[in-house]
């Protein structure tokens, strides 16, 4: 079979047309689709971990919420132990009243120092000296036991009990105590 020149021209023309169609197909039809698919997949890869993180965060917070009431209650109880106002206004009378209640008439309290509490946000430590000029050892020991049990935010840093020369039955006691108060 012999292909004529005119037919060869037609075939070449058809092939050129076909090549053009193929080019247009890939460039103008499949190209944008591929770009859109790549962008979409990238977006999904971004969104999925974000949503997973959000769900984890919600779960974590929910777990914390379960623990929180115990801590909040403890914190509330601790805060309730600290009266409002300047500590120098309420702490010395409170100590004097406490010792008076324990049968120790005189207890002088003075503020010695003040330290910030780095770990305990919202709190500071105050150091006081409590001078008890005339006390018997046993009532003092009983009062200190009660004080240590009754005042959880108070810690006795130093205790000194010295017999009075003129009256050996009685002692002169000095305490250095620290307390936590609100900022």
């Amino acid at each position, binding site marked *: 079979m012999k292909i004529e020149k005119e037919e060869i021209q037609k075939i070449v023309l058809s092939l050129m047309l076909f090549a053009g169609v193929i080019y247009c197909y890939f460039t103008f039809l499949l190209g944008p689709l591929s770009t859109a698919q790549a962008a979409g997949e990238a*977006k999904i890869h971004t969104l999925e971990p974000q949503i997973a993180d*959000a769900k984890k965060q919600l779960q974590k917070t929910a777990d914390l919420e379960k623990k929180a009431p115990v801590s909040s209650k403890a914190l509330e109880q601790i805060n309730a132990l600290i009266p409002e106002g300047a500590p120098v206004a309420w702490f010395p009378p409170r100590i004097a009243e406490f010792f008076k209640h324990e049968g120790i008439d005189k207890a002088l309290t003075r503020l010695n120092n003040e330290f910030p509490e780095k770990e305990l946000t919202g709190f500071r430590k105050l150091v006081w000296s409590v001078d008890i000029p005339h006390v018997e050892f046993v009532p003092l020991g009983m009062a200190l036991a009660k004080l240590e049990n009754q005042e959880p935010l108070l810690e006795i840093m130093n*205790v000194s009990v010295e017999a009075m020369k003129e009256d050996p039955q009685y002692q002169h006691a000095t305490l250095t105590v620290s307390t936590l108060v609100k900022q």
Partner: protein
Amino acid sequence: MALHINLYHEIQKQELARRRDPLKLGMLGLLLVVIGFVAFYFYRMESVHLLNVRIATLETEWKKFEPKQKAAKTREDELTQNIKLSDLLTKRIESRFYWAPILDEVLQNVPREVQITKLAGDLAIEKGRPSVLLVSGISSSAAPRKVAEDLRTALDEKLAENFEKVNSRFNSLDDTEESVTLDGKPCPTATFAIEFQLHNSAPEPTPVPARKKVAAQ
């Protein structure tokens, strides 16, 4: 035998040539390829459409979760801070050093031959350092030094029950020229100062000590 002569052979040849026309066959092939391409295009379009639907769903979900996540993060920070603060405060309260039980031990272990003249306790501020208890007094008996030593040993043993380690030593133990009357007999006296170093764990808080005997009289 009959002779068969095909008088249409030229017509049939032309018909065959027409059916095997390469241009026609090529056009048919091309058409098939085009149909395939169109089908593939629609398939791809559907894939992208499904992807877009999924993105839209995820975006809606994210829009729902994003503010919740921010609120949860803020709440978490707040709760964590509260829990941490509460734990630290509780730990601090529970690890306090209690002096009353120590005074109670002193009270219960001082014999009648001893008069305590001074008692001083210092809480260790730095971690790892011992708290210190100083007990000074006068002992009186036929052997006042032995009485003082017995007091040191007794207190050492008692305090060791509540602390991981207790070191005790005499800072001073001196005979004095003074004598006291004990049970109607004059007895020599000695002054002493004992230092107790109390290491690590402190004793648990005890109830108010019972009134047993007066230590310093």
